């Protein structure tokens, strides 16, 4: 799981082109959206595309989405449980 968390941090930084941020700066348990990373609803959509493209994991509705994007750890857990691509 820790390996996936680290990979996700790197993918978040590269996919969203975040400046001034390294994987070590991202707290795996901190809120992903609306926190210090400055992520917004467009970024959430970008992450949904990333999940589907890279891991084959989809978010079926808003309630699931709220849980999935609550933190990097929650995102990693969801991908671990729902991925269809390796």
């Amino acid at each position: 799981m820790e390996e996936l968390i680290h990979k996700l941090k790197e993918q978040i930084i590269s996919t969203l082109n975040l400046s001034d941020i390294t994987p070590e700066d991202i707290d795996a348990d901190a809120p992903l959206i609306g926190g210090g990373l400055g992520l917004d609803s467009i970024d959430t959509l970008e992450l949904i595309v990333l999940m589907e493209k890279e891991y084959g994991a989809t978010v079926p509705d808003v309630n699931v989405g709220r849980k999935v994007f609550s933190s990097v750890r929650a995102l990693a857990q969801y991908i671990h449980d729902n991925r269809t691509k390796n």
Partner: protein
Amino acid sequence: MHAAGFIQGCSAVHQSGRYSARGGHAAWEQNQQGPLDVQRKQVYEQPLPEFGKLQCADKLAFSAAAMLFGELSGIDRTDFGICLGTVYGSLSTDIRYMESLVAGYPRPAYFSATLPSSPVAEVAIRFGIKGPNRVVCGGACPGLSALDCAFGILRKNKAPAALVMAINALEAADRSSALIGPAQFTEPYAYALLISAGRWEKGLNRRFVFEGEFHDRGMTLAGDESYFLDMILAIILRRQCRIAVESAGFEGSLSIEKD
């Protein structure tokens, strides 16, 4: 038309480097190709994770505005106007979005910036500007049309000052696009001027006169609008100048008067 006012701040992000009224000129680093490679720390002091997310036109607009406002502390920007003239608008981002769509994974971040007005929104949000805004996209000299719009806003007392921006944000890969004629290639740039109708207690207060006639605003002939850079250089060097402009879209002059 004849319009006069005061320039209170200016900046440029240009192939030859970055320019601002108080900071003068700074060249690009060796590994930087030019304006589209601009780094956050070169234009804005505070960390800003969102900087890298900005699409090319938005990034150029933010960079020029950040340099300009970075030299104007203690002013209330809330009611300022913003007028943008842009040659190709968001064309490069439009192309990136279409490429992602064709690849099967349309990118929301590209889609949200596929509007010529997107740079105005970014600047307004980041710098807390809520006054009127105008966008002129295309034409022979959209930056001058934006300047004309800004004077209109000031004349009607709709804003105490107006940020005028002229931007060309076409990425290198798109300059050979069939959408654009070969004679119209220009390097990316962003110019920004902050103009007010009257003098400010603390400001650059460079008196500025804009006069002449617009001909055909509908004709798209992308020049580099380098008269803006000439004006900015005159301000940096504290010189007066009169720049004659004779293009397909405008004939007249821009004058910076004696300091």
